């Protein structure tokens, strides 16, 4: 038996029964969407279409429609790529790392966080794909024999490692997510009355019957995949950081980059999960499953990772000053006081200063503040990548090459378009998938449900030899 101290807050409110949990979570799939959903979906889909249009415009006209120039050859595209990949980290972190740490509050949020991961990685993968310009030979990314193209990839290049890291990450995340979904799909299947829908859910649930052997294998696979995903999720942003850190560009080549990028990725990912969940819990009436207690835990992680990122920023600054390397010294001086100072200070205030507000319990447990700050963090993390990429590039070693980067409407449009793609996918997900892991949530009802906790509180006191408290 797994017992829980009464001073821990319950994770499931409303004195639920097992049946009620199923009812509550499956409801959005079985019911009809309201007007609000259609409205938001239409806006997202239109934005996505607009972004796709601009992507085709880029293919037709060439990369020249972006604001890149001979000195700044990487700007919005790679910024967006890193931003989206970073957002994708939270899903795996919640599903794998928090599983290994036995954090029960993950049960309410892992499903939607994993979905978000997958959609974010899709958005991220768009950017290197379209940056090649000649999308019809995009398969040259892969190490294919020369008869498929004239280029053999460079195994010494971190960009290639990145390709491997992200494709592995995407496949394993997808597998992990899908396996978790199987029992829940079976639950939906068993309740469906529309024959066509029933058929679909029967197919996707792979004939799950819920017998003991299946559950046993399910648990084993989950644990193995969690073990595999943990190093994978760390490797992805590690290798993204190496895209920069293996260069000799001041501000990019610094050894703290790998863990610092990973911390930043988790930071931005949690912020995006917060943003989405705060809306979702309201729209789908899931406030009793995704409670303020859950939001508080997420906010604590945002505060922690934000502070880790802050320590990394300060470390970079101090070591650049300490090192005596004039180029490094200049790169950081230029970030903070050069022509992009506003981007640097936006990054600093959004990422390091604003999460410190979560030290205050009232703010940490306020839905409005959580929502507001999660957006601020998302903005800050976009600026972080912009600052790292553009301010380091626009001041070349050769002062005659010094220049500025200005985005064009196509740059901006494609980025907004990927936001559209992301929200379109997420909205579709929220109406056709069980957005909370039903089976997993049930597994903690008789530990962390409020009804159960009330019933067993006195047992807990009796069981120990403690004579305390309150």
């Amino acid at each position, binding site marked *: *038996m*797994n*017992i*829980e*101290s009464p*001073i*821990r807050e319950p994770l499931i409110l409303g004195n639920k029964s097992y049946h009620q949990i199923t009812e509550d979570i499956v409801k959005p799939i079985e019911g009809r969407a309201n007007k609000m959903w259609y409205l938001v979906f239409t806006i997202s889909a239109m934005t996505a279409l607009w972004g796709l249009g601009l992507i085709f415009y880029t293919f037709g006209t060439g990369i020249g429609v972006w604001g890149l120039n001979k000195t700044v050859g990487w700007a919005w595209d790679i910024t967006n790529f890193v931003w989206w990949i970073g957002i994708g980290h939270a899903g795996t972190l919640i599903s794998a790392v928090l599983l290994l740490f*036995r954090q029960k509050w993950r049960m309410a949020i892992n499903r939607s966080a994993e979905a978000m991961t997958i959609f974010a990685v899709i958005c991220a993968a768009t950017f290197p794909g379209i940056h090649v310009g000649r999308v019809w030979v995009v398969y040259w990314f892969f190490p294919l024999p020369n008869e498929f193209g004239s280029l053999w990839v460079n195994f010494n290049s971190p960009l290639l490692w990145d390709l491997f890291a992200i494709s592995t990450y995407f496949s394993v995340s997808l597998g992990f997510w899908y396996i978790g979904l199987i029992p829940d799909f079976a639950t939906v299947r068993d309740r469906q009355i529309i024959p066509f829908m029933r058929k679909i859910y029967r197919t996707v649930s792979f004939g799950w019957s819920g017998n003991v052997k299946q559950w046993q294998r399910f648990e084993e696979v989950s644990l193995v995949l969690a073990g595999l995903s943990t*190093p994978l999720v*760390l490797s992805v942003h*590690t290798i993204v950081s*190496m895209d920069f*850190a*293996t*260069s*000799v560009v001041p501000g990019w*080549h*610094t*050894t*703290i*980059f*790998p*863990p610092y990028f990973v911390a930043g990725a988790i930071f931005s990912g949690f912020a995006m999960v917060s943003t989405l969940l705060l809306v979702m819990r309201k729209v789908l009436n899931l406030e009793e499953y995704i409670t303020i207690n859950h939001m508080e835990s997420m906010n604590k992680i945002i505060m922690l990772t934000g*502070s*880790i990122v802050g*320590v*990394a920023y*300060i*470390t*970079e600054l*101090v*070591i650049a*000053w*300490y*090192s*005596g*390397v004039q180029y490094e*010294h200049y790169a950081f001086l230029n970030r903070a006081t050069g022509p992009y100072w506003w981007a640097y200070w936006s990054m600093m205030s959004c990422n390091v200063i604003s999460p410190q507000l979560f030290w205050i319990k009232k703010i940490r447990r306020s839905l409005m503040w959580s929502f507001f700050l999660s957006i601020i963090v998302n903005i800050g993390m976009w600026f972080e990548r912009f600052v790292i990429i553009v301010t380091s590039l626009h001041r070349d070693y050769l002062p005659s090459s010094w220049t500025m980067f200005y985005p064009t409407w196509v740059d901006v449009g494609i980025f907004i378009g990927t936001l559209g793609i992301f929200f379109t996918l997420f909205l579709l997900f929220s109406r056709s998938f069980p957005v909370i892991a039903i089976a997993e949530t049930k597994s903690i009802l008789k530990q962390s449900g409020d009804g159960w906790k009330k019933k067993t509180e006195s047992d*807990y006191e009796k*069981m*120990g*030899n*403690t*004579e*305390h*408290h*309150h």
Partner: protein
Amino acid sequence: MNYTFGGKTKILTIVLAVIGLAAIIYGAVATPERLLPNLLLNAFIFTAISIGGTVFIAVHYAGQGGWYSAVKRVPEAFASFLPIGMFLLLGLVVFDMFSTSETFKIWEWMDPEFQKTDRVYLNSGKKTWLNNGFFIGRVIGYIAIWWGFSYMLRKWSRQEDIIGGLGNHRKSMIASSIFLVLFGVTSSTAAWDFLMSIDAHWFSTMFGWYTFAGMFVSGLCMVTLITLHLKRQGLMPWVNENHIHDLTKLIFAFSIFWTYVWFGQYMLIWYVNLPEEINYFLERFSTNYRFVTLTALVLNFVFPLIFLMGRKSKRRYGYVTFAACIILFGHYLDWFQVIMPGTIKDKWSIGFTELGMFAGFLGLFLFVVLNSLSKHALVPKNHPFLNEAKQHHI
């Protein structure tokens, strides 16, 4: 049921400490240039272990961990050694600043001649950062923060035994969060100060987190070893293989984390091959130090990866004891190759000076910590998560 510190264990720790004293005297006479670097090495390692224990407690307070309360009295006792290790570090710093001796030397930059003539020193932030007064001030700051918080957390934990209630728990949660923030900064700066500045021209932004990883792993190893020692005495019956499993899991995880930061630092410097950075590793991979560097890597990475991956291996007391000893020695070697190339260069050796002093510090550490453990109950009986820890099952 309290722990009584006496008999063979007490004699053993005293014998070890006496061996250490003999090694210091022997070292001062026979191998004088190796004396101070070894004092630094051992003082740093046992300080790292002690503060690693406090970090273990603070992390679990802040994250509301439950299971750890079964063993938390062990790392709490580490706080007794902290002032000894840290004041020794301070003593070494002060001695080195005022000593004019050519033989007894650790930090090259403390030489007044270096501070007047070195081009890099004079043309960088080093002139300000590595300034005698500021440096001593920082070391005193580390003592105040690290010892202060360790002391308070232990005090409140003991108070909780007597008065019960949730007051001490809440206070400890807040103090732990504040400590973790301060430690997040000072663990890095202390690593730069005590270790990175030995190679005065070298710098690496990863160095702080690399040192932190080593600190935490060593602390965890020692918590596990002492817990298992107490279990062998028939004490702590509420601690079972589930708790040891979790402790070993953390050792495993943070050994991998250590490797990750080690590799991140090494690979990026190797790949880019800048003269001001690569020199550090050229020295450590020269025929002189290659053996130590690679052995440390094997013991700290390959060994846990292979031997601690499986579930069963984390649950056997004898096996875990062996593994924790190996990893602890691995970190000794790792910090050895951090300190020695910049101080005694090619004149290093592992002889009686080294092994004797390590044994001596170990004896002293165990004496102080076990003595402190024997003075208080091993169970934090009013800890609000104690029942969870007693029922812990994984």
